[in-house]
């Protein structure tokens, strides 16, 4: 409870700071006033200048909503993935789900496919993510559990294939598509649009709700598949539903902003250290924590280098990489080997 309030407060603070900060100066009172006015509460703080209003509502707010939605979706996807793999190192980026989704999206970009309108990229990203998840799941499990080595080796294979596919598409692509694909691989929230952010937000909220509803079952799955089955859990259905959920969350998250790695690894792990492994609390906290992490990361990406913008995927990998090393090292020490 205290953790929840603290995370919520931090998220609100991060959102406000992110709305203020940037090349175009906006004050805190203007942000709050503008938000209040949009809720139908007239007040004196709201900015009169239409440029300020536009900077907030056309550029900053959709971007912040996108950051929250993507962060929550990735963190929840990571936590769900760890639950069904029975392994705290499973993460959409590490095991290649993200690169599967990226490949799907790149095919849509290069092929110029618009069969499903602006949803085409998102749908193909989802399809690519789903295929990659099914592949990893099918290959890397033995006796209802996944060993670290197998998981990581499978991830290497899937990532290599996804990377090769992307390289091939880069080779085929015209310079405009090429730029779009490179942007994809690095990840960026710049230029987020309301309608894109809304799609991701809907998926993130619905996906988190479904995951939380399955929380008790994920707990029991920690006993191993056989024991879960003996406790009346329909393991096959839970597993398949969870894989679709992971692919949907990851696909939606990467569809518009590209690959942002390690969020699904770092956030659930920290939350597990603070709250314990019980999934219902863990999933809710991961959603909020993921949103917080991405809002902060995006803020840094926008402001760290004056006049330029770092790709956000670069930042999360910069933090996530060493973190992953530490986790790996600890797990190795705990199990006395690479099993």
């Amino acid at each position, binding site marked *: 409870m205290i953790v929840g309030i603290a995370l919520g407060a931090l998220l609100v603070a991060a959102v406000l700071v992110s709305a203020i900060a940037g090349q175009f100066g906006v004050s805190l009172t203007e942000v709050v006033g503008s938000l209040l006015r949009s809720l139908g509460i007239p007040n004196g703080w709201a900015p009169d200048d239409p440029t300020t209003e536009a900077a907030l509502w056309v550029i900053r707010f959709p971007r912040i909503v996108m950051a929250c939605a993507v962060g929550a979706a990735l963190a929840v996807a990571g936590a769900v993935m760890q639950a069904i793999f029975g392994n705290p190192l499973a993460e959409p980026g590490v095991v290649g789900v993200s690169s599967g989704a990226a490949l799907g999206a790149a095919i849509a970009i290069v092929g110029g496919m618009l069969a499903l309108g602006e949803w085409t990229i998102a749908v193909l990203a989802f399809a690519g993510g789903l295929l990659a998840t099914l592949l990893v799941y099918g290959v890397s499990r033995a006796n209802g559990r996944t060993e670290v080595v197998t998981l990581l080796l499978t991830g290497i294979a899937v990532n290599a294939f996804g990377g090769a596919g992307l390289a091939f598409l880069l080779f085929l692509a015209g310079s405009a598509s090429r730029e779009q694909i490179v942007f994809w691989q690095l990840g960026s929230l710049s230029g987020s649009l309301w309608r894109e952010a809304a799609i991701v937000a809907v998926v993130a909220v619905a996906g988190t709700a479904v995951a939380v509803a399955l929380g008790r079952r994920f*707990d029991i799955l920690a006993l191993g598949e056989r024991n879960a089955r003996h*406790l009346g859990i329909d393991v096959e259905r839970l597993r398949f539903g969870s894989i679709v959920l992971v692919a949907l969350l990851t696909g939606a998250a990467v569809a518009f902003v590209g690959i942002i790695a390690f969020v699904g690894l770092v956030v659930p792990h920290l939350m597990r250290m603070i709250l314990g*492994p019980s999934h219902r609390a863990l999933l809710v906290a991961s959603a909020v924590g993921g949103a917080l992490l991405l809002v902060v990361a995006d803020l840094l990406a926008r402001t760290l280098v004056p006049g330029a913008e770092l790709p956000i995927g670069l930042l999360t990998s910069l933090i996530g990489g060493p973190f992953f090393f530490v986790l790996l090292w600890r797990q190795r020490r705990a199990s006395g080997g690479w099993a």
Partner: protein
Amino acid sequence: MGVIRAEAVTVSLGGRAVVREVDLRVESGELLALVGPNGAGKSTLLSALSGERVPDAGRVLVEGRPVDAIDPLELARIRSVLTQDNAVSFPFRVAEVVEMGRSPWARTPGRDRDEQAIRSALERADVVHLADRRFTELSGGERARVSLARVLAQDTPIVLLDEPTAALDLRHQEDVLRIARELVGEGRTVVVVLHDLSLAGAYADRVALLDDGALRALGTPVEVLTEPLVSAVYRLPVEVLVRDSRPLVIPRRHP
């Protein structure tokens, strides 16, 4: 009758019949021990009785109904299973692990007994003092007892135990079988896979001796655990001492 009935059950793994045409009835209020050499098919037979493994031929009835026709959640309120795989993926606390045993009773009137069932399970398995510890930090023997507590908390009329004594010291081995006897005393049915023949002889009402997948003998301990039968099945000469009509099986070490 019989609470659990196996009718000509055959189970094949990789083309080889691991359990062959086993007929078995376990009555309510009975403790049956499944014994036999490694690879005789004890665990496979137990998993067929639990409904986990579907027999290639024959069928298993639980309380008169084919086991595969019972809804998994309802089945989980009828029979509990202690498997040999007792790892837990994340550092849950012992109390949480034991509480998971109550999950089949969620949204049923049985949930009113949750608290009492968990407390009594922790006490019976002698793990009350571990309740706040993380499962992943426990020793092998402690994990085995916590897993047993989880199964006890499930509070089912049928309890299936697959080598529950494997990781335990002498006192806790005796404890587990004493608990099994208490369960039987409450009118429950217990089937337990054991390697220690003297332990089986001391606590079981009946013993089923498996040999290469087939049921070699079924009867009271003194009927089944005889020198010629055990020596033949285990291919090791043994001596059987009978005390208070309970057999003690000792290998002949100095021929």
